[in-house]
């Protein structure tokens, strides 16, 4: 019984991390945003497991739905695909 619950926990955490990796690596930004929303949704299920129903509801409504919607509007007004060029050191550590 307990082991089965633990199985679900492990599975959920695994799905969450996989979704996060995909969200970071996908070139299609729309897909990346969907990945991000998936991370939030799985996290909200985990909040439920951790006995935090209030947080689970808030995360699902605000963290997943609203923030994904805002991202999608931003993508609509900018561009959908990421263009990767040659890499140089990060831009905010330079003066």
């Amino acid at each position: 019984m307990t082991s089965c619950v633990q199985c679900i926990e492990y599975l959920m955490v695994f799905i969450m991390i996989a979704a996060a990796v995909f969200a970071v690596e996908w070139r299609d930004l729309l897909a990346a945003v969907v990945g991000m929303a998936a991370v939030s949704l799985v996290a909200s299920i985990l909040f439920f497991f951790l006995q935090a129903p209030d947080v689970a509801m808030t995360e699902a409504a605000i963290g997943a739905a609203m923030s994904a919607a805002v991202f999608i509007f931003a993508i609509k007004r900018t561009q959908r695909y990421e263009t990767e060029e040659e890499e140089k050191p990060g831009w905010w550590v330079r003066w």
Partner: protein
Amino acid sequence: MNLQFASLLIALPLISAFFVPVIKTISRKAVMPFLVIITAVQTGIAAWVFEEVYTGGKPIIIMAGGFKPPVGINLYIGHFAALFVLIIAVAGFFMAVFSMKSIGVEPKDKYAMLFLLLMLGATGMISTGDIFNLFVFMEITAISAYALTAYNKTGEASEGAMKYIVLGGIGSSFFLVGIALIYGSLGTLNMAQIAQLAGNINPTVAQAALALLVFGLAVEAELFPLNAWAPDAYQAAPHPVTAMFSAFVVKAGLYAMVRIIYLLRDTQAFTGILRLVLILGTITVVIGELSALRQTNVKRMFAYSSIAQVGFMAVGFSLGTQAGASAGVFHMVNHAIVKALMFLAVGYVALELGGTSIEDFKGLGKKMPLTAFAITVGAISIIGIPMFNVFWSKIQLILAALKVGKTGVIALILGASLVEAVYYIRLIHTMWFESANGEKVKENFTLGVIMLLLVALIIVIGVFPNAAWNIAQKAAADLYNVSQYIKNVPLLPGVSP
């Protein structure tokens, strides 16, 4: 009078910011005068609180909701907070007056709201007594600062704001992880109780938590690895906002950092963290001064100079002695006055002459003599010439370093002052001794009065430093003396391990 009324310091800017949409529908022109009136009232309340704290000698503890501290959130308006709340209010009032003239970009009603909320955030950061509440106020400050940085909607402004947002986001995540670690080991968020129980934290946890908190606050405090946003943001933000950044937003961040470090004095990580801050502060000074040296844009040059001065303060606090803390606080006060004056003057020049590159400052002494005079006084003061206020705080820093035998710090201060002398005297020379064509500008009366007031303040503190030094010492004692801080907060007796 009931001292709980000091909570109006938070309530007034908040309710006024929410009132702005209503005012706007009545009359669009009324928004900016409304802003000025509210900041003036805020100054009055802050002055009352300052008087109350410094004559009574006791901090004001505001308990939100009537719950005693570890249970409810409390605001702690001690000597330091009272002083800086007053500085924030006064600087806010001056900049609100300046905004009436200098803000031309629509929508002004939104600007007024963000302005008030920036003030509110800094006030809250300085006066709160709860570590998570500190995070909330930090975010209020940061988010209104992001929006105000990007307010002009030019490319530079957006890029500066973007850098600020990315770094601020990393910083706030780190800060929250730090809070999580502290909460996980102590079960409380109240700063006084954290200080009381600090000895119980596992050394590894304490080290990680402190480092994360310091890095999280380094974004706001503009310390070295996380301050790349500052020059861009300072340059591109509207002029009054730049002055506010330099006068109190940075100070609020630095204060929060120092407060947290001192609170966790009983942990074993304390000396290591002080060394870290010393190193970060030193690098900040060096890089700030050297970058300022090669700028051709005056506003950007002042921004780098401001960063370097923040480095001085961090160095002073990281000496870990009361003298060092006093010198740091004194430098904070002096720097707030001087930089408010200088950014005000530069902003005014940009408004009249259309830019802040060094070309625009040629012959400023003939075109705008009063403004040029103000910049000159500010520059001379910040170099550290005797009879001006910054001289005394630099001297105190050197004395404090001498006491703990850190000659490197003394060399740093003297060397940095030399570099400052080079670029500021170059600017003064450009203003007074290079000729340029252009009509004499009729200078605005109100702004002239504000500049003269600040100049007078610089000279008065420079000639009679004792009164200001006493206030700074009291404020620093409030910051440094943690056992007194714990005693001042009436912790509920039932809630302890």
